[in-house]
């Protein structure tokens, strides 16, 4: 009995304000509060609120037969707490239905796994606590930032006690095999890999409104028909996408909400089909094949690699600089400083610096508030330079305090 497994990524970074060289050593406040608030308001209005509303109605209508899952980044939840508690409440209402699962990820939506395991675990734990607090769930399935994945990551996540991990279904790894079965990393049966069916996922996320596509317009019956063809050769159709697909990337005028409203009914018209959350899929089906990924992969761009965040020397430089500060930042014991630093590990900052396609004015540009990747790098590095200055100041302040203490002691 094949299942359709929906997982939606919900994330917004804390964007940095325009921070020029004159602010260094003068201004230690880095966030663009107005812009973050404005974007969150826009996306809440266009996507989060109407889509959550639709999801809640669907769950209500199908009385437990329609199930979905989310991964909300910690930095998104934090912004909802600050600016849009009403949206947070609507996610909580979904959690209360029992038909919605929340996945685990790094709180700061970072690439920390690649640079610091210590920080990675810290961010995963922070996120877990946040999910528990707001949604009263303890996640058992992990999704790494942008589905960055390889065998080592799977094994590491398995050692942390997770039962499942979300990853991209890569053609060059799968070959003739189908992504619609549970897989396992080589030699590790303790963790199950849920592979994204990128063809069907991208039909919704990217191609839905493309009038040049020969399948346009995509209707719910048509899509369900494609899904039903998996019957007999698959157990789980994993449809993973950004939540902003609904209303923000695909505008309401494209019919995306009508599509969404009709999908559950069309899918379960086939008596063998149902909806499951990732942890239910893992409980229900056996791992059927090995999924052997040595090189780091992701779900981004055509390359499905790390080049969107680590594709040029600027990105490498910025990334190395921020993690170089980790030890010093943490030794300061200053929680504000640690939090500020950790927000700078958010992957979006590095995505903005991507020079890969920016000439073509493509998707990278769409997601960036900077005019050029160079502006993104310079802004980030100026902020980092100030952070280094603050650390330096703290150190000298501390050494003055210690000296005073020593003087005091010796005077007595």
């Amino acid at each position: 009995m094949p299942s359709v497994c929906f997982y939606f990524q919900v994330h917004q970074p804390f964007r940095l304000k325009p921070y020029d060289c004159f602010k260094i050593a003068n201004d230690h406040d880095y966030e663009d509060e107005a812009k973050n608030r404005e974007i969150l308001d826009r996306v809440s209005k266009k996507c989060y609120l109407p889509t959550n509303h639709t999801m809640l109605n669907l769950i209500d209508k199908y009385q437990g037969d329609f199930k979905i899952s989310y991964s909300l980044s910690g930095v998104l939840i934090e912004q909802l707490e600050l600016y849009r508690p009403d949206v947070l409440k609507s996610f909580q209402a979904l959690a209360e239905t029992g038909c919605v699962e929340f996945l685990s990820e790094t709180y700061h939506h970072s690439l920390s796994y690649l640079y610091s395991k210590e920080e990675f675990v810290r961010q995963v734990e922070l996120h877990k606590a946040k999910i528990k607090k707001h949604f009263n769930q303890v996640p058992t399935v992990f999704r790494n930032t942008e589905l960055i994945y390889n065998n080592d990551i799977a094994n590491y996540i398995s050692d942390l006690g997770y039962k499942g991990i979300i990853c991209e279904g890569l053609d060059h790894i799968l070959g003739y095999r189908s992504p619609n079965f549970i897989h396992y990393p080589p030699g590790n049966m303790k963790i199950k890999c849920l592979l994204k069916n990128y063809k069907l996922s991208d039909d919704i996320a990217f191609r839905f409104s493309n009038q040049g596509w020969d399948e346009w317009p995509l209707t719910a019956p048509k899509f369900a028909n494609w899904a039903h063809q998996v019957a007999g050769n698959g157990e789980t159709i994993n449809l993973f996408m950004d939540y902003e697909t609904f209303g923000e990337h695909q505008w309401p005028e494209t019919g995306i909400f009508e599509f969404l409203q009709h999908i559950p009914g069309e899918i379960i018209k086939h008596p063998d089909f149902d909806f499951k959350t990732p942890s239910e899929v893992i409980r229900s089906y056996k791992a059927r094949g090995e999924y052997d990924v040595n090189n780091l992969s992701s779900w981004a761009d055509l390359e499905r690699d790390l080049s969107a965040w680590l594709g040029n020397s600027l990105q490498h430089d910025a990334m190395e600089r921020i993690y170089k500060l980790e030890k010093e930042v943490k030794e300061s014991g200053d929680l504000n400083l640690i939090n500020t630093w950790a927000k700078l590990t958010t992957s979006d900052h590095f995505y903005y610096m991507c020079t890969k396609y920016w000439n073509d004015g493509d998707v990278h540009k769409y997601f960036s508030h900077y005019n050029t990747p160079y502006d993104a790098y310079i802004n980030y590095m100026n902020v980092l330079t100030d952070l280094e200055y603050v650390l330096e100041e703290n150190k000298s302040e501390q050494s003055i305090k210690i000296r005073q203490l020593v003087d005091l002691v010796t005077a007595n």
Partner: protein
Amino acid sequence: MLGWEFPPLFSGGLGIATYGLVKALSPKTDIRLIIPQASANDLSNVNIIGLNQLTAQEIDLERVAFNFSFLNAKVHQLSVSISPYHYANQLIEDSQRNAFDALSTDQKSIDQINNIFSGKEVYGSNVMHKVYLFSKLSEEIAADGNFNVIHAHDWVTYPAGINIKHRTHKPLVLHVHALETDRVGGHARNEIYKVERRGMEEADKVIAVSHYTRQQIMEHYQIDEHKIEVVHNGIDPAGIVRTQHKLKDKLVVFLGRLTHQKGPQYLVETAEKVAQVYPRVKFIVAGMGDQFAPLLESSAYKKLGHHFIFAGFLSKAKVNELLALADVYFMPSVSEPFGLTALEAAQHFVPSVISSQSGAAEVMKSSLKADHWDTDKYANYIHALLRYNALHQNLSLGANHEIQHVTWEHAAEKVCGIYNQLYRN
């Protein structure tokens, strides 16, 4: 082809550009090039006629009547304000003045013409006389109509182009390397502006060296956009050796005439701001012009003396030496039709901070651009290049790679396409 500056005689980019284009065109098409002053060169397939070497075989002076009187009346008003490059040199050589006078009478001779077009001054305060004379002589020389297209470079040759067009009914292409509105500002409506505007109105095609210039032509000269084609200049490859300087300070280089157009006032403002956040910096200013004294004064007034080195006018070889050790190239031009120097800097692996109001900004994605008045942004960019090595390296390699595709061959191909189009019609 009608040119004005041509190596070895040039004062700015026009000579370099005319030479580069003629050289790349010469294998593709026969060229008869009329210029004020010719000397030995390496161009084959090009018939160069220099008015300084004009002979009785090439022109029958008896057939030409000169009338400078309308201009003579204005000669004292011409002076620097109308000279395109505002040369301080206001001296009109007596022999030249006499020669102009003589040409209006029966005593005219080839020697007088040769005399007028000799000497080192390309423009000078009698430039209007020269332009008129050039137009009359060129018309005579080209009267045979033994060519398919007339191609004229910058305003000094436009009247000649128009004359030849009227005489021979051949199509006229005007090549805009710079506009009077670049040199003196968008409000310019002087004699030179009128010459440019009339020329572009008469032309069958106008070639702009950048999209930026095309925009300026449409905006300030109201020329039909369909008439204007963009052909970016090229740059000749050069063998480059970087040299490491031993100075503790980083070097920011400014190259160009010190005129309002090049934005020297923004240079000082930017330098002041950079020095605040990056004290170990020196700005090297190579070039001369009427803004030299104001620049010197304002840098002294702002107590920035130790951040500035004024190198004066440098030879090509010295410029190369300077670029070989520069850390950043800075071009804050108010209006820069192309900006070849930024590309030369890229050849030397020097990253650029340049004005958005420039053609170079179009061909160098890997440069940092700001509106010419935005000195905060300039300073932020220069600071970043001085402080963040990864950025410096990324942009110097990136720009160097990009300009490999900016060649005169590419430009010549586009120009040939325009010729063919006109020829067919």
